[in-house]
């Protein structure tokens, strides 16, 4: 015996778990368990746990094996479906990023082309205004309207995409 264990410990545990301790097993083992501090403690704890385990086994309710199997099968199916959907989710993300990128590029390309049109319209209408200040204000308003128009168009394209991703299951 080393103070923390005893060579008889496995024999004591086996005797307790087979229901033969203290009656029905070797008298010498019972006598040893009375004297040895480790075996006394082991036998007391093993007796309690064995008793608890034995009774709890009959008291406890477990689902039928078919039910556990069925739930596991459904779960396996869901897991494999989710795993197969993962590349699609990635593809959706990439598509959305490309759409936004294209939108920004179109806006960037359209802006310089739109400016001459705005300038020409301003030149046409400038003569109708009595002062330069009023004409400048109208020109600035035209530029602002063009920019707002472009942003509005971008939102019209991006909003359905954003809604689609927000409302999708993933």
């Amino acid at each position: 015996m080393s103070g923390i264990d005893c060579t008889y410990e496995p024999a004591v545990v086996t005797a307790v778990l087979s229901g033969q301790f203290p009656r029905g097993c070797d008298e010498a083992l019972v006598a040893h368990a009375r004297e040895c501090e480790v075996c006394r403690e082991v036998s007391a704890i093993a007796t309690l746990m064995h008793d608890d385990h034995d009774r709890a086994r009959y008291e406890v309710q477990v689902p039928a094996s078919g039910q556990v199997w069925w739930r596991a099968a459904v779960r396996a199916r869901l897991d494999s479906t989710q795993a197969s959907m993962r590349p699609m989710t990635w593809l959706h993300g990439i598509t959305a990023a490309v759409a936004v990128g294209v939108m920004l590029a179109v806006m960037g390309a359209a802006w310089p082309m739109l400016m001459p049109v705005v300038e020409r319209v301003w030149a046409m209408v400038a003569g109708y205004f009595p002062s330069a200040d009023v004409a400048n204000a109208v020109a600035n308003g035209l530029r602002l309207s063009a920019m707002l128009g472009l942003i509005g168009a971008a939102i019209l394209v991006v909003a359905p995409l954003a809604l689609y991703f927000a409302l999708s299951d993933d």
Partner: protein
Amino acid sequence: MREFTLTDMERLGAFDEAERTFQMTEEAFRTFYELTARPVRVYLGRMTNDDRLADDLLQETYYRFLRSNVPFENDDHRRRYLYRIATNLVHDHRRKPHVEIPSAVLPEPAPRFTEPTLAERAARRIDLQRAMARLKPRERSMLWLAYALGWSHEEIAASIGVKTGSLKPLLHRARQRLAGLLKTGGRS
């Protein structure tokens, strides 16, 4: 002849899928489950002190077991692996924040070699459960596997993921803590 509904078709599909991904057939699983479900459920119940959680973990244990790709040498190896999954699940759950459930109040009979009465046995069981609830999860696992199931030190070490050499002092300390708690009726 009975008509097949959509649910039936889905079930057949799910079973086919399961047969492919699970490591055993439903027939083999039924046999294994009948042998192991109750002891594993009791183990989970004693480790968690929560019946509903133990039920959930039982399902999860068997699911992970069925999805595992371990080549089992024999039934003992399979059973030990099942307990290992259960132990890991309990420990994973313990790492999450949880609410401690207070235990019932009971009198305190000390362990002895004479045959106890039915009432004494019931009281001792509650004391044991209360004392176990005060131990660390790993201590509970070690003690249960060693003294309720009679596993060897090697088997316990493999199941809870410690070296066999480290198990003896750990088990000794856990046993002494439990013995101390049992003397006070499971109260600290």
